């Protein structure tokens, strides 16, 4: 009988001791996994308000002091709280994405509760239900309508709360797998998706109909006239390129970050990038100084001159959010940062 066969005879004990089997330097004590029979008595989830169409021209969100988050959203069930499931042999599930509407409303995709919560000036959030808790991204259209995308299971893009429902299949001849959709974008001409962080594909018009001109454009668009791509060149460089809709380069800029003694820091990952209305762009990167992880935002003005750098608050634990950063219509950078007790929405003015 092999060592592992013997171990499997006693599952409970085996789980506890297997760590010791694998550890090279002394035993690693692992807590046994809890069994599903130990389900706690769970509180009842709050009722979700009836879906309502999202209207434009609402009041603007008040902007707090620079050092304070706009919104602090504790983990929980109630309106204004967000669902959060810590990782245990899975990804940590929590708020996936945020976006800021043309009227200043802030929407957060509360994935665990299969809902979107929308905040406007000093009010309790509007709560809009989603048909599944596998939605990962959301985006406001210029008309104030809110759209949400799910990439797995039944891949689709829906207009949140629309009556009658507006549904767009997450499919395009150039997309391949639906999971290749890396961002949802909504323009005046309807719904677009970003494909593998490279180009954007026009999926539907604003009424979920087939677009008259289903074109593809290089880069990611935003409020202005340009599109932006971002490319990582390890270990220390990233490049941001602003494109015109004709595919011409409007400007390009090299991104580097340095420590206090002017040494280049490695750029570990690109988190978000988007053009600004004034022809510039934001880029959010993950970097590290020694063992210390950092998230940093860089902003370029129109023409590609570096205009601003911002040290962003760090999320705790592995970041499994889909799009936690977004450039708002006011050209500010918004961040949804998950912490141990809450998620916080920050605004960084240009």
């Amino acid at each position, binding site marked *: 009988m092999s060592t592992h066969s013997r171990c499997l005879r006693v599952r409970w004990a085996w789980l506890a001791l297997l760590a010791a089997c694998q550890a090279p330097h002394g035993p690693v004590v692992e807590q046994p996994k809890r069994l599903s029979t130990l389900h706690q008595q*769970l509180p009842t989830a709050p009722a979700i308000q009836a879906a309502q169409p999202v209207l434009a021209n609402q009041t603007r969100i008040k902007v707090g002091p620079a050092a304070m988050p706009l919104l602090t959203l504790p983990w929980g069930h109630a309106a204004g709280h967000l669902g959060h499931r810590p*990782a245990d*042999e899975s990804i*940590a599930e929590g708020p996936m994405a945020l976006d800021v509407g043309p009227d200043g409303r802030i929407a957060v995709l509360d994935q665990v509760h299969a809902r979107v919560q929308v905040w406007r000036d000093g009010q309790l959030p509007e709560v809009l239900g989603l048909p599944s808790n596998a939605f990962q991204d959301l985006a406001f259209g210029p008309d104030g309508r809110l759209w949400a995308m799910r990439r797995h299971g039944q891949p689709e893009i829906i207009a949140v709360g629309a009556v009658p429902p507006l549904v767009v299949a997450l499919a395009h001849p150039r997309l391949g797998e639906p999971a290749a959709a890396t961002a949802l974008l909504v323009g005046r001409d309807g719904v677009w998706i970003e494909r593998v962080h490279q180009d954007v594909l026009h999926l539907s018009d604003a009424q979920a109909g087939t677009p008259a001109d289903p074109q593809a454009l290089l880069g990611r668009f935003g409020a202005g006239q340009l599109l932006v791509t971002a490319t990582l060149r390890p270990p220390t460089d990233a490049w941001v390129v602003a494109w015109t809709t004709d595919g011409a380069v409007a400007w390009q800029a090299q991104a580097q970050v340095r420590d206090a003694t002017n040494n280049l820091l490695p750029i570990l990952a690109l988190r978000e990038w988007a053009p600004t209305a004034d022809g510039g762009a934001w880029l959010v990167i993950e970097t590290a100084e020694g063992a210390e992880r950092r998230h940093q935002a860089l902003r370029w003005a129109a023409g590609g001159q570096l205009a601003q750098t911002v040290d962003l608050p760090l999320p705790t634990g592995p970041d499994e959010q889909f799009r936690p950063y977004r450039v708002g219509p006011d050209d500010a950078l918004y961040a949804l940062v998950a912490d141990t007790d809450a998620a916080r929405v920050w605004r960084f003015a240009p």
Partner: protein
Amino acid sequence: MKNALILAVTALACALPTAGRAAPPTMTTDAIVELSKYVVGYSYWWGHGRYRTDGKEPGSCKGNCATCGCPQCTHSGAYGADCSGFVAKAWQIPNTIAVTTDAHPYGTIHFIAAGANWNTVAKSAVKRGDSFVYNINGAGHMFIYDSGDPAGSVWAWECKGCSYGCVHDLRTISSDYKAIRRINVVDAPDKDGDGEPDKTDNCQTVKNPGQQDMDKDGKGDACDDDQDGDTVANTKDNCETVKNTDQKNTDGDTMGDACDPDNDNDGVLDAKDNCPVDKNVGQTDLDKDAKGDTCDDDKDGDTVLNTKDNCPEVKNPDQLDANNNGIGDACEGDADKDGVPDKTDNCPSVKNTEQLDMDKNGKGDACDDDADGDTALDVKDNCPGLANAAQTDSDKDGKGDACDPDQDGDGVDDKGAAAVDNCPAVANVGQEDGDGDGVGDACDGDVDGDMVANDPDNCPTTPNADQKDGDGDGTGDACAGDPGDPSAADAQAAAEAAGADAAAAGADTAAPASDTKVAPESTGLGAIDGSVAANPVGTGSTPTASSGCQTGGRAPAWPWAVVLVLSAAVVSRVRRARLA
């Protein structure tokens, strides 16, 4: 007691040297990938690892707690896996086992540490079939790496969680993850060493890690002799990477139209060329419709095609042709080519599309030798753009008063934000104004401001409202140096007394003046302006006040003019009294 014994035995077994255990069997990366693919669509099942190769019975997972993860979740069905259960199954560790058999030999807590069946590898060296894992404070996740840049986005197979199940996902990898590789993995044969196994390589003998295949014919571009699939071999194709079976090449250069940035070779790139396939260096566009005239079948934009247009370059949607000669009325006899037919052109021989005619005499300004119609020919007109028949030019500077901002030429503009000439029609560079009434002495009818006009004033430059003249010689007592008059000191005293009286009189008259709403502009200078207005330039008469000043301060003979000047003097005194 029994449990304690079992634990002790298990512990002893685990403590045996690793070398004593069987190593996992050798696998190819292809085999790992194949086993990974099957998991897609299966449900997340915490603490388990079991799925099928036919996709049947995917099961489902439902979260029961919004602030806690699995195991507080409910799984339904017989198949599913959590992240580590899936990886162990795809890697077939510690031993070969059917994917349909439930097993969960390791958790992320194990994979994150060194193990007998896997090794840590650098993220930059990660290969297909490797895994990424993290575990921090008991919470962890892992997945099988498929492709992509670990520093950017990667494709991965993973049992992601209760909400998503097991998926093939494009995702990012945070810096908390580390890469591990199963031991005893052999790469599939790869002749060209480009990382793509021969079995799936679209160019087996040419290195092409990207596997680009433009025409999707299964043969990679790197080894496809017709990479754009237009049936023209690359070596003969005038657009190797753009499908153009017709090989059309308008400008006859080396590049086909389909990939030529300047198809007509006119030096203007197609993207900005208003005729991309017709040479038109000038880019003329008569109707401004963004289509150059050279390639515009309706140049003048009158909706009639050039070939049928009786005036192709003149907009005439009505196509009127009175004499039926085939040439539209709109362009017939248009000698100056200004688009206006001679019949209606106010300058038939001079191009003047705008047809401006200042004096409305039917002759356009462009050909009218007296454009402003003031009878002075433009070549001699001292204000050619403004009718001024009198051609008055007070300062003789060649610019008529009507259009001269400084008609007396004293260097002080008649109107303006800063200095304003206190005698606009009389040159007075110094702008002297003895009585401070805003009317320069050079044109002031009452220079000393004693309310007695200069002409009857027996002391015109010394205020003496009483006009006392002890010796009756016509020169007031106040005038210094008049023999027979009181001393200058007495005269001064008298003058001051007169001034005080005058001020008192002014104060008395101030109220009525205000009541009549006399604007400041109506004082002094305003009165003169009023006179000018009443005697406009061109009538032949000379402005009253101007003539008074121009004749050395002599008042005009007309009684009404005297009244005007006196009125101005009174108001001036009132102003001074107010200021005081």
